[in-house]
């Protein structure tokens, strides 16, 4: 009976130690995925040649992604995740803004012609 109690305590202790570790490992992976996703959107927007007001948003996205990477480097995974999500959303906004600019320009040209 005493052995069983000892084994139980040992298991409980192990679980208590392992659980935060497992959670941390999950955060690290989530941060890695979030940063990669934001970077992919950022790269795509840069490749499309985003400029003007959209370029400003893209620069903001790039800066926030750098901050996310910095946090990730310092093992601040949860902070890295929210920054990566913000960078991701800003890259979306930059892409949409660039698309809108292109359409506005196209419409102006048609109107002139």
């Amino acid at each position, binding site marked *: 009976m005493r052995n069983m109690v000892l084994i139980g305590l040992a298991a409980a202790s192990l679980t208590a130690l392992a659980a935060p570790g497992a959670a941390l490992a999950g955060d690290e992976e989530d941060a890695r995925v979030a940063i990669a996703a934001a970077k992919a959107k950022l790269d795509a927007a840069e490749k499309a040649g985003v400029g003007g007001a959209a370029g400003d948003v893209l620069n903001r996205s790039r800066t926030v992604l750098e901050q996310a990477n910095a946090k990730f480097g310092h093992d601040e995974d949860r902070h890295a995740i929210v920054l990566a999500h913000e960078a991701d*959303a800003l890259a979306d906004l930059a892409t949409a803004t660039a698309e809108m600019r292109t359409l506005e320009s196209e419409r102006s040209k048609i109107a002139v012609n």
Partner: protein
Amino acid sequence: MNKLIFSLAAATALAGAASPVMADKTDKLLTDEYREKIAVARAEPGVAEYGGVYLDRASDRIAKLDKKLDNDKSGQAEAVAGEINALIETARTRARIAMLKKDVEEAKARAAASTNDKLANAQATAATAQAEAAAAQAEAARLKAQMRDYQLKQTQLGATLVLQDVVFETGKADLKPGAAQRLQPLAQYLQANPNVKVRIDGHTDAQGSDAYNQQLSQARAQSVRNALAGMGVSGDRITAVGHGESSPIADNRNAAGRQQNRRVEVTLVGQQADSFAATS
């Protein structure tokens, strides 16, 4: 657009300003503000339809914002707020894009229709011009064919036709009834060729006095001039000269010769007689 730029600037600036602002507000007040912003955007035209996915994501992030505000030691809430702002503006931009696409397509359709109209008008104008040119050509050919009957001869002055005295009353300058009709093709030709000038030379035989013959030849030349003017040919283009009996072309000692000498010559100045021939 100004609104969008302002919103973008506000979203961009939020990162720097968020923390103090947030510090002044309760978590509930702040999250309610974001819920309100999302609701306002969703009510704007097209935003729910074309940017709904972004607004949904923004709504999902409210809970996360609330959680981060509860225990925000490292400023993570401002990043979540920045993300929400960006998502809201992306939703608006997507709605704007959808409307612009529609505008562009409509503008393209209008431009294409306008181009088609212009093309159709140009084709119709060209067809009309072609038909008019063909009609003018046919008319010119018809007039030339009529002129052929005059049997024009080449002279130094130009292409000359001869009106024998049979078109005049005997001893008078008056044109016989029907003689004017004979001048009709000439008048039509002259109307169609306004640059062609005309010289009319009147001649008589040697019978009668020189003065009488001079007067008669002048009067007959003038009579032809008047007839052409009456048919719409400007008198300014016509010169009428009487020569009396001074320029015979046949023997005045016999009737046949005298008849040839009694004549009025009408010359189309500078024109080639062979241009009225059948082959031209």
